[in-house]
């Protein structure tokens, strides 16, 4: 029995350490995944937490100023400046912006909301809708005639 006790104790220690590391990891890197309209509803918490905001880059809004890049995100694709659900973003990270980051692309910005209402992103990812899969509107085209093909 003794061996099993020893073994159990070591297992408990290992799991304990890993759990502790996991807790620390979560606290350090947790990011709230928010839509643009939700950011405005968060109130003061929006300034306190790390956020990840998903949106579509406004056509022509990307401005490069030295190392900084600013742009505007919208909740839904293809919106113009008058759309109220918008978020101004300033990116000043080290990594280059991905190739897929361009007008109308869907982008994920990680960072914090400043008191000025501008979102300061430290990381921007862009997903090109066609990267692995056809665009959603293509999708419907592709799925609808299926019945036809089978019949």
């Amino acid at each position, binding site marked *: 029995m003794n061996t099993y006790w020893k073994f159990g104790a070591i297992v408990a220690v290992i799991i304990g350490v*890993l759990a502790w590391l996991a807790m620390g990891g979560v606290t350090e890197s947790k990011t709230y995944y928010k839509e643009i309209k939700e950011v405005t509803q968060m109130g003061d918490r929006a300034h306190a937490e790390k956020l990840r905001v998903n949106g579509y880059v406004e056509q022509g809004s990307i401005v490069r100023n030295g190392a900084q890049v600013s742009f505007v995100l919208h909740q839904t694709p293809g919106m113009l400046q008058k759309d109220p659900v918008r978020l101004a973003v300033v990116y000043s990270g080290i990594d280059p912006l991905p190739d897929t980051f361009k007008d109308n692309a869907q982008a994920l910005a990680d960072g914090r909301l400043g008191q000025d209402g501008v979102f300061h992103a430290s990381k921007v990812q862009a997903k090109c809708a066609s990267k692995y899969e056809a665009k959603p509107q293509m999708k419907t*085209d592709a799925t609808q005639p299926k019945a036809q093909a089978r019949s």
Partner: protein
Amino acid sequence: MENIGALSILLAFCFAVYAVVASVTGRLKKNSFLIVSGQRAVYSVWLLLTVAAGLLIYSLLTGDFRLAYVAAHTDSSMKTIYKFTAWWGGQEGSLLLWAWLLSTYSTVVVFMNRRKFRDMMPWVTSVLMTTEAFFLILISFVLSPFGVLQAGRGNLVEGVGQGLNPLLQYWTMVIHPPMLYLGYVGFTVPFAFAMGSLITKQPGDAWIHTTRRWTIVTWLFQSAGILLGQGWAYAVLGWGGYWAWDPVENASLLPWITATAFLHSVMMQEKKGMMKVWNMVLISGTFFLCIFGTFLTRSGVVSSVHAFAQSPIGKYFVIFLAVGIAATVILILERLKYLKSEARLESVVSRESSFMFNNLILVASCFAVLWGTMFPVISEAVTGEKISVDAPFFNRINIPIGLALIFLTGIGPLIAWRRSSVESLKRAFLVPTIAGVALMALLAALGAYEHPFALVSFGLCMFVTATIFIEFWKGASAIRAKNGIGFIPAAIELTHRNTRRYGGYLVHMGIVFMFIGYTGAAFDVDVTKEVAPGGTFQLSHYDVHVVNIEQGENDTYAWQRLAVDVARAGKALGTLYPERRLYKASQQPTSEVAIRRRLNEDFYINFAGLSADNRRAVIQAYVFPLVSWIWIGFWVLAFGTIVCLIPNKVKLSYARTQVVGMAEKHAPVQN
């Protein structure tokens, strides 16, 4: 033609269902005609799916843009090879690839084992074909690869096509998905055998012996798939990373981790008859994680930089997983009494316990990665807020886990079964420990103390390398003394006598090389500069001189290319040509980075674009120390795995010395 393709898939589905029904009924009613007809149905499924896949490939190659799939994933200017690989460039095609691979595996398995295991095989067939039927439901009723674009509805000009994403037009991407799929799909086979042996109440290890090669080959495919993905990310995505803990990457890692644990813990069952339940759990877990991985990549449940397909197939996967897992759990619980352990754990310092710790740590790592990947889904369900965790979370847990694993890699194979004395431990580990500590001291003196994890990692890599080298050296010296041959032939002879053990050491060595490569990342340096032609900048000990910017275009893309002279300490190292392309069909820009690969470090340069005034080039330059060792490590790992598959030279005469439970250090403890 698309009708024939769709019909083939539909018929294949019917045959798969028939194979399940016929095998089960045949087995229960002891009707061998039904069983044989079930087997033939398996072959028919393969034939039908081969026809369907052939038709899809033909449509892709000939550019039949009436088909939605062809139009969405190829264009007429693409190279033939990429037209072919568009087979798995999208959702429907890759599901067809899954189904086709599974039917190929099933056919081989059924054909090879149809006369062996007469009572188990019908069950194996039915498990394989149930999985097959599930995937065929997806491609025959939900997402057909043979959908036709309706006239006037297509949002593209007929005859051109949208093209395969240019980022995927790269050689490793050509073979990465099929490799990964060969791995994903392959674990269905050992799982089916495990279930077959449970259903037929066969307590023995027949299923493990039969599927050992399958498991190893499958594991190799999966390792290759993961590594190719890393190699692709490194060379194509332009930021020099090879792993970002993205959900899709994690999805491929999860079953690999449990499979690695399985490969180790089956040895406990073969040698000592222990951990039988655990092995069942591991192989089932691996199989379901493979399905889960496909689900994760294919359903859009967790968002990712890899733009997931948002598609209706998620719920089908959830149902399949839920039913499958429930059935497996019930079956294992039902058969617990046939899975009793034949030996007991005798000491904490023993081979047995090192296997257990290896398993524990691997499974903990798997659990942590799974937890982190699913964190947004879990947190949304619990708190209503979607919270994601990032690379720091994964690194924090997996770096210590990785170090612990590499430590066990060193000590596990050398500890005796049952129990080890302090004396034997000292004999085995004194020299490796000194070597490891000496290396750490040296590196610390050179300034590496700022990166404690890296320091420990290098020390442990040295430690493991020393243990492996000593093993080869001791064994080969004995043979050399006896036979009077050189050291290298003696080492080959040694390996040939016990391929599993020494092949295993080679695999471990490959892992050590990969760890050296990953550890190098602690010392990465980078810089971002805007430089006009004629300008220079410095990074680390490299002097970089931008010579000029050229541009041009061809049928597929327009390009801008930078010529960059690289020198170190006044000595010219050559010219690099990083390039930017804009693909015409998809209007997508890509960067073609230029890399000067060396064993000690890579110099990596990315042309990120032109500055706002169009006069200066935006350049990101990186130095990645030791990164080549990751790829070298993979080749060593692959070589070692293949060695493991070679049969031992003299099986019988060697096996006589083997007494289970009495194995000392030089007995053929297989590894």
